[in-house]
């Protein structure tokens, strides 16, 4: 009996995703987002290897030189090539955003599933805490915790994750609640499935589709948060290049007229987050039948 049930429901989340792929690539905006992000990611990850590090050593003779054939996007306040700095920073910004979101997703899933499967007082306490937390401007606590103590890549990642798991938790709880009422889950429980089996065989695979959408959009938000923190010198350590760090002394660059030092790193952030949001929109439209008619 349980085997039959499993045969039917084993991979719906994954199947949903695979089925959505051709549809996803027919979604024009999502396709554009995908390719823009792919180019940015490949350039950031492999660009520094390809172009070498020569143009990244400070050079007093070319401080703030405007964009030219030699330096495509100009040079920064220490005479370093801005294009290479952006690629270097992109690696940190993308990976930090991704790592923070994955952490947040893990914690959010744990919390949401626990709350969704629990009944009664435990669920009420967990949800009450979550509601209270959502209504508080967590960003302030993030800034405080970054201001106290040394900053490191790991700490920034953790802090961003801690500031952004709440949405996932709430979504997972709703999903679990709905799924727990479904017949195949009831059958699995009647068949003696353990909680762990229930989570990994049934709940997670079935909630995968909406989860993917939330994660995608989350990466964009994490990148924005990281850049804001780094701009305030409260993000990744000053020795590490990230898109936010590149903008760190943006004000003095603006006032000395070096527009390229401010424009290009910011444009990389906007392009990346925009691409990620378009992918998220596309995934939601293609995975969730309710949204399909819209495009």
């Amino acid at each position, binding site marked *: 009996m349980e085997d039959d049930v499993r045969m039917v429901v084993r991979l719906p989340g994954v199947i949903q995703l695979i089925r959505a792929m051709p549809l996803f690539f027919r979604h024009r905006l999502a396709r554009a987002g995908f390719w823009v992000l792919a180019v940015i990611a490949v350039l950031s990850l492999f660009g520094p290897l390809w172009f070498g590090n020569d143009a990244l050593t400070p050079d007093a003779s070319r401080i703030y030189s405007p964009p030219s054939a030699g330096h495509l996007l100009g040079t920064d306040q220490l005479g370093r090539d801005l294009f290479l700095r952006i690629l270097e920073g992109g690696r940190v910004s993308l990976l930090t955003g991704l790592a923070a979101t994955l952490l947040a997703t893990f914690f959010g899933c744990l919390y949401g599933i626990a709350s969704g499967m629990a009944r009664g007082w435990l669920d009420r306490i967990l949800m009450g805490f979550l509601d*209270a937390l959502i*209504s*508080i401007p967590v960003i*302030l606590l993030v800034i405080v915790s970054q201001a*106290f103590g040394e900053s490191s890549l790991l700490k920034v990642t953790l802090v961003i994750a801690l500031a952004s798991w709440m949405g996932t938790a709430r979504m997972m709880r709703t999903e679990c609640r709905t799924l727990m009422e479904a017949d195949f889950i009831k059958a699995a429980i009647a068949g003696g499935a353990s909680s762990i089996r229930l989570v990994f065989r049934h709940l997670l695979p079935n909630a995968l589709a909406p989860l993917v959408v939330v994660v995608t959009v989350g990466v964009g938000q994490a990148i*924005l948060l990281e*850049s*804001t923190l780094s701009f305030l010198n409260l993000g990744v350590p000053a020795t590490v290049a990230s898109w936010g760090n590149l903008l760190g002394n943006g004000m003095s660059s603006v006032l000395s007229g070096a527009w390229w030092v401010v424009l290009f790193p910011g444009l990389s952030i*906007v392009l990346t987050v925009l691409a990620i949001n378009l992918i998220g929109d596309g995934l939601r439209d293609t995975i969730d039948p309710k949204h399909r008619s819209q495009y």
Partner: protein
Amino acid sequence: MLGIIPQLMLLSILAFLIMKVAPGDPVASLVGGREFMTEADYQRVSRNLGLDRPVLVQYGIWFENILNGDWGRSIADGREIRGIVLEGLRVTLVLVGFSWLTITLLAIGAGYWAGTRAHSWPDYVISTLALVSFATPAFWLGLILILIFSVRLEWLPSAGQSTLGREGGLADQAAHLVLPVMTIVLTHVGPCIRLVRGSVRDVLSADFFRAARARGLARTTLILRYLLPNALTPFITWAGFSFPLLVGGIFIVEWVFGWPGIGRLFLQAAISRNYPLLMAVVLVTGVLVIIGNLVADLLVAWLNPKLRRGHGR
């Protein structure tokens, strides 16, 4: 309604914890270091400050002091924190007020425009702008606007609330408001427009609206009595939800434009680790956000009689 009690409790606990996780020894910092005081003095001062009591008791005393209006003194200059925070709040509310007014008007106007003309080119332009606005960091847009309007064109001032020496001038203050308000509006209006656009479309195709239209009601009645109250409900709900996010955006904009409000105060306090000030700002901002949520809830209930029943809980 009762939901705000646990919210306020959690908020006050988190604000209190700032003091507990702040680096450094508060007793030793009074005299510049532990080596400058004897062990007996150290114990005595700790006892006088109440630091030997259980943490829960300390929390209780702190909370009582806050309620009595004693918010402590700033580490940086010894001024009363209550005065600093309330003054900062007043300055911030000017910025927030103008920004919210503009966002609301733009969201309703542009959302209505795009929603009633779905899939036309203005709709596409507005939707694209909304998408881009959602992906733009506020601090960067602020820098770019300063670059264009202050550095290049020299039309508008880039920092502060007024020009030094000309504090009184209304035109001068208005000019200082333009760029910060523009930054907040442009980075937050995107999702609002999309939301209003979506709900306008939903209402336009809803049965009750078609019925009202079929009855031959006047256009203004249709829009004011039927379309807007229903189309604005999701927007107001979202506005209530987004207060916590808006706070972050406003704080960073104040920082970029040197606007002497509560946000700049907070970031300065964070960088100089002025924890009594941090606690006060977190508490005050949090309470305002929670009240904002509540007001949004009540407003939605008032606009939508269907939800009133649910509020008896």
